[in-house]
């Protein structure tokens, strides 16, 4: 099967050479397949968030290769890394990471601000996504005034604005109750059916026990303990 | 783009005000050329050698003609070449 991302022996060491050196990820080789939902499962501190960051070109590995669409990004200079990140990935963070004090529409369009996209096209895209996520009525509201579930959806909308092929989510249900978590999973499966590749890092059984999860990669102490590729 | 427009307008207005002020200052200096030449004629005719800014002591009225030790003549504890500039008047005055 076609792999969007492949890692080969990837390691990440923080504070290398210092007393507080941390080996967050060691020798990980995995594949993320196109159009599938992959879950990185493991307890906190197992390195799944770090791995997600590496896959999403947020940081560079200390060792190993990361191939995005067959191209090794581990050694790319920062400018190219940013453009790969912008074109390929959408991120959903555990903390939502919205800009407080700004409206929903501004937050959603923010990733496109420095790009050359036409203003009207940008707004059109934003409106479409808000429509899809049932946020249209909230477009002028400051994000600080929204509930946790709504903020989560704004974060998803922002992740989708640059039409990424891959959606990366880090503990997306950490701040949501069961009902909202189910809603979120519905959104994610819908997006998956639209053709998005999805990677979720989580230790929430609500997610990884779902039957429609295609792959589960279990991590522990920075290494892959078990990968069940279906 | 609304905020950019507001900001650009604000800066443009300020720049315009400054430009107008600058032009008007040059203009004002220019229109006072006549007054200035009258004053210069006055300096020439009266053989004036100093401006009448600080008249509180003779070494301040004509600083250019003061003796080398002048600062000690009229106000021995003067901390300033122009006693008026010291804000606090010498003891006994007023």
């Amino acid at each position, binding site marked *: 099967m076609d792999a969007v991302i492949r890692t080969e022996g990837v390691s990440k060491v923080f504070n290398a050479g210092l007393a507080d050196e941390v080996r967050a990820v060691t020798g990980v080789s995995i594949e993320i397949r196109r159009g599938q939902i992959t879950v990185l499962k493991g307890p906190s501190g197992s390195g799944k968030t770090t791995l997600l960051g590496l896959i999403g070109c947020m940081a560079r590995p200390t060792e190993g290769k990361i191939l995005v669409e067959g191209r090794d990004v581990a050694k790319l200079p920062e400018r190219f890394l940013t453009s790969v990140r912008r074109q390929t990935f959408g991120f959903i963070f555990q903390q939502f990471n*919205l800009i407080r004090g700004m409206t929903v529409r501004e937050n959603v369009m923010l990733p496109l601000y*420095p790009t050359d996209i036409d203003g009207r096209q940008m707004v059109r895209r934003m409106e479409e996504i808000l429509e899809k996520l049932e946020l249209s009525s909230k477009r002028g509201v400051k994000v600080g005034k929204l509930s946790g579930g709504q903020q989560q959806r704004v974060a998803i909308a922002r992740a989708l604005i640059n039409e990424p092929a891959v959606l990366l989510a880090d503990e997306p249900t950490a701040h949501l109750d069961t009902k909202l978590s189910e809603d979120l999973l519905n959104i994610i499966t819908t997006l998956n059916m639209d053709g998005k590749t999805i990677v979720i890092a989580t230790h929430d059984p609500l997610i990884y026990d779902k039957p429609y999860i295609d792959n589960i990669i279990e991590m522990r102490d920075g290494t892959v303990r078990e990968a069940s590729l279906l | 783009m609304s905020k950019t427009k507001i900001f650009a307008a604000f800066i443009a207005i300020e720049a315009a005000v400054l430009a107008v*002020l600058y032009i008007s200052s040059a203009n004002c200096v220019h229109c006072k050329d006549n007054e200035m030449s009258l004053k210069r004629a006055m300096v020439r005719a009266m053989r004036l050698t*100093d401006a009448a800014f600080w*008249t509180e002591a003779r070494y301040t009225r004509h600083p250019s003609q003061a003796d080398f*030790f002048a600062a000690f003549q009229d106000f021995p504890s003067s901390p300033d070449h122009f006693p008026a500039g*010291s804000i606090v008047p010498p003891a006994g005055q007023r």
Partner: protein
Amino acid sequence: MRGHGRVIEYALSTLARRKFKNFSVAAVFSFLIAVLSSILFLTHAYKTETLKLLEDSPEIILQNMSGGRHELIPVEYITTLSGIAGVGKASPRYWGYYYDSLTSANYTLMAYDENMQDIKLLQGRMPASEGECAVGKGVADIRQVGMKDDIFLTLGTEQNVTLKIVGLFSANSAILTNDLIILTKDSLIKFFNMPADMATDITIEVNNPSEVSTVARKIRRTFPNSRPILKNELIRTYDNIFNWRGGIVLTMFFGAIAAFMIFVWDKATGINAEERQEIGILKAIGWETADVLYLKFWEGAAVSLSSFFTGLILAYVHVFYFNAQFLAPVLKGWSVLFPKFEPMPYIDIYQIFVLFFLTVLPYVAASVVPSWKAAISDPDSVMR
């Protein structure tokens, strides 16, 4: 270019989001610029006007010295002086100081001579006979007298004089005439009890201005007890005075400048967690380092540029429309007779540029530099 426009827009909304903070920064910044440029404007305007006027003062003033002090000069020197090569017209000046205990002010008394006949900035006329005088605006105001009024001056029982005011120097010449009382030569000599054939000093014209110092040297050789004061010494003195005076006032505001510098330094040495987080988010959602720095540049530039312009406008209006009302007390001190502040609007563009480079640029740098570090670090920090 579209992208840049939107980043600027975003920079402005970021500023608007921290309205209170940025507004107070802008207010302080504008105030500082207003104070600094008021001082620069005022000093420059006065300096320029004074120096221009002094261009027309006599080439050489010759003083007689006795015991190292200024003494009256014998009028007969003029004959000898006229024999010195290069010396043009030499003529005596009769003038002196009068301390008026009534108003605690010093006046300058000066004798009329026929050269003063055609002076324009005078209401009325020059004194023609004993018992008449023309006075400066400052004198008239402080003594509360006008045309046709009498003014009484005394130096003791023997020396006193009552003068009728027949001329008033106009207000716009106050920079030159504020403390003057012009009276006839005979009245002056009598009032000051000056010996006959003595003058206060002698002014000398020089045929070739480039030979002034040579002429001065010759005069000194002829009259070893004399002190020639050259016009360019005069001008240099005034140049120094104004620079020095402006410097003193600037020093008084040193506290304000220091406070502002500390503030800029504080901004420069650390950005707060919220700003760092925001930079991380922007990076994580696909902004490049350059975009983030561009954003920070505009945040700094917007605040400092608008404050700079505002400060300049305030300073101009303050100095040239309100006659430097807030600064005047500092320059005046306890001076009794100070000419009314109506500076001619001479502007030095160079000074404005210097001020720009010393305030706006450091501020912009202080906005951009600390963000640099946050912007070049890997954005995955927002995930932790």
